[in-house]
């Protein structure tokens, strides 16, 4: 037995060494997001989509630069900005040049600042920050820098598109805004107030409040307050368990209006909301899932389900990140010179398989794309979420949303 153990240990070790030698030249992307704690599900699902996108879109098709593979290296930041900076340093020390992060704008703010500082001090091993989901507008405005690229619409763009759809409802008179107490929740609230008052001055905002993120056990008291305010519509930027908790408790407490959300899909949220939320929850997102954007997207989604039967493609923009990065690396002819890669990404136009054209705006590195408002339902759904039969059906689309929106970004280029 002992001998067997020794033998297997040696062979395992040699496998590891062999494997690392074979992958030595991979282009590595550090994935820094929560893989433990209350938001672990959101982070893990994002990781699966990244890993799949890299294999399916790049490695299985012969890699980039004539045969170099891409690889995702996962780091758990426990959704803490402090922990993220430690993990960022570890990633940089391992020679990784691409950093992907998305959950929590608080974390993204810390990373973008650290990346900027690092690149200024270490011109020899600069890194790029690929932000796939952190939507605090400041990241592409006051806090913008050359190294940060955002592949998701920011909170202002989403709210602009969402309110375009909302104001078309004539009998909506009172709106309640509720969100998580951090930079993103505040950005959503500010954008909602600004857009609603500009587009429909007869709409009254009957409540605007923030609750602690990830700590609320029971949303019932909040729901009671919302119902008591007589709201016809609720806007929330909540995600993860905070979204399920709020949605379920609102519906159970007798609220009967629509709930407009940013992130009420996938990662178990759709299954947990289930039948009770049918036709009640709407969300703003990019990418056409139902109906699907293209045959290529259908094939991709089917292949993803074959590999991760319990998973969802609820962040199709992750595939855009990988597609655009691969295109930029090909264009630059190198993966090591991130300035050249960033130069390629700037102003890039990309045809997404999830429908529509993407444009990486050069002045602030904010992606511009079609925005969809969809509804949580089980009718007309080809690709459901969480194997629940329920999914998000696109109801209306705002094309190239906020293409000409202003930015305060003053980009300093190297």
């Amino acid at each position: 037995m002992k001998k067997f153990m020794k033998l297997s240990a040696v062979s395992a070790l040699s496998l590891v060494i062999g494997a690392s030698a074979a992958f030595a030249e991979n282009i590595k992307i550090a994935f820094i997001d929560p893989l433990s704690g209350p938001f672990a599900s959101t982070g893990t699902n994002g990781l699966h989509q990244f890993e799949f996108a890299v294999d399916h879109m790049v490695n299985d098709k012969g890699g980039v630069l004539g045969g170099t593979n891409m690889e995702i290296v996962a780091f758990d930041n426990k959704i803490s900005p402090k922990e993220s900076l430690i993990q960022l340093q570890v990633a940089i020390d391992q020679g990784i040049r691409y950093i992907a992060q998305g959950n929590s704008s608080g974390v993204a703010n810390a990373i973008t600042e650290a990346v900027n500082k690092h690149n200024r001090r270490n011109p020899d091993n600069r890194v790029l920050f690929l932000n796939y989901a952190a939507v605090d507008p400041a990241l592409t405005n006051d806090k913008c820098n050359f190294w940060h690229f955002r592949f998701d619409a920011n909170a202002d763009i989403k709210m602009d598109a969402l309110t375009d759809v909302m104001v078309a409802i004539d009998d909506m008179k009172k709106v309640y805004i509720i969100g998580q107490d951090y930079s993103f929740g505040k950005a959503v609230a500010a954008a909602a107030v600004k857009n609603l008052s500009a587009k429909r001055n007869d709409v009254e905002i009957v409540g605007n409040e923030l609750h602690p993120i990830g700590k609320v056990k029971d949303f019932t008291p909040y729901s009671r307050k919302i119902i008591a305010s007589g709201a016809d519509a609720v806007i929330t930027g909540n995600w993860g368990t905070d979204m399920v908790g709020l949605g379920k408790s609102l519906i159970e407490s007798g609220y009967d209006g629509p709930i407009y959300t940013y992130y009420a899909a996938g990662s178990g949220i759709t299954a947990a909301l289930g039948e009770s939320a049918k036709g009640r929850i709407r969300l703003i997102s990019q990418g056409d899932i139902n109906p699907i954007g293209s045959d290529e997207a259908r094939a991709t989604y089917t292949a993803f389900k074959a590999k991760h039967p319990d998973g969802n493609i609820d962040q199709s923009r992750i595939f855009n990140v990988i597609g655009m990065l691969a295109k930029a690396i090909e264009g630059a002819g190198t993966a090591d010179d991130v300035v050249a890669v960033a130069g390629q990404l700037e102003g890039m136009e990309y045809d997404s398989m999830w429908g529509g054209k993407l444009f990486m705006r050069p002045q602030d590195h904010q992606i511009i794309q079609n925005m969809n408002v969809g509804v949580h339902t089980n009718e007309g759904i080809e690709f459901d979420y969480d194997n629940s039969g329920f999914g998000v059906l696109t109801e209306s689309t705002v094309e190239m949303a906020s293409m000409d929106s202003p930015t305060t970004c003053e980009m300093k280029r190297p």
Partner: protein
Amino acid sequence: MELILVNIIDGLVTGLLLFMLSAGLTLIFSMMGVLNFAHASFYMLGAYFAYQISIALGFWMGLLIAPIIVGVLGAGVERYGLRRVHQYGHVPELIFTFGLALLIEELVQFIWGKNQMPFNIPEVLNYTAFSVAGNSIPAYKIFMIFISVGIFMGLLYVLTKTRVGMIIQAALSYPRTVESLGHNVPLIFMGVFGVGTALAGVAGVIAGPVLGTFPGMAFVLGSIVFVTIVIGGLGSLWGALVASLLIGWLTTFAKSYNLAMSDIFNAIGISTPENMDDNIFRDLWTVTSPQIADILPYILMVMILIFRPAGLLGKRES
């Protein structure tokens, strides 16, 4: 006005749920002096077991079987884990339960994954019992109230009226004497630990469908349970009940009314400073009651520890 009634009911539900967790913990704590950090993890296990059973046998079998499994697991933990660690003192016990909590969380994630489970209210109870001014009170909440009250009554009866209860109470205060009288005190400890964790399991089963069944569910309830038993007084069942209800109502009311600190200050005669930007108390002036709702129990605990260290209904001095 109607909202007050609704909040009283909501607070009662929250409080009673907290009671089911703290009842077991307070008995365990006072009997063995063990701060069982894993107590909320047994609550989580209850929810997950019930979810798994409910897929095959329905919710009601889950409610029946899951707490029993959790209780047996708890008794096993006491018999084969804590009892062995006990001889090395309190710190190893503390570390043991702390490690157990982490272990259970990882195990749950390993088996069920990190997503929230679609553990839903049973169809029979999925309707609105009655509504007050547009606020519906789900029948499930009424069911939760009845279950918790029933358990409280049952516990009270067993502890005060039966022979078993009397021995437990005696073992709480004078374990050596009870042992000399020929009772098997380690067995009592194991039983209390098992029943305590089973109660946490029941709480998990009935809370899972409303508060969500996800790997972080133990974490969000973990510390508040300790606060409850400290406020109520260690070892006191009535104390645990009073403290749970107090915390339930306190947090519910604080969250459902937007009471601003500036209003309170103005009411007691301090006027709002004109220039808020450079005022050092700016954060204090702008804070509202929902924002501080979750720390109110902790403030209450500090007050209790200062003015009545034995807790509201606690008798012991230490």
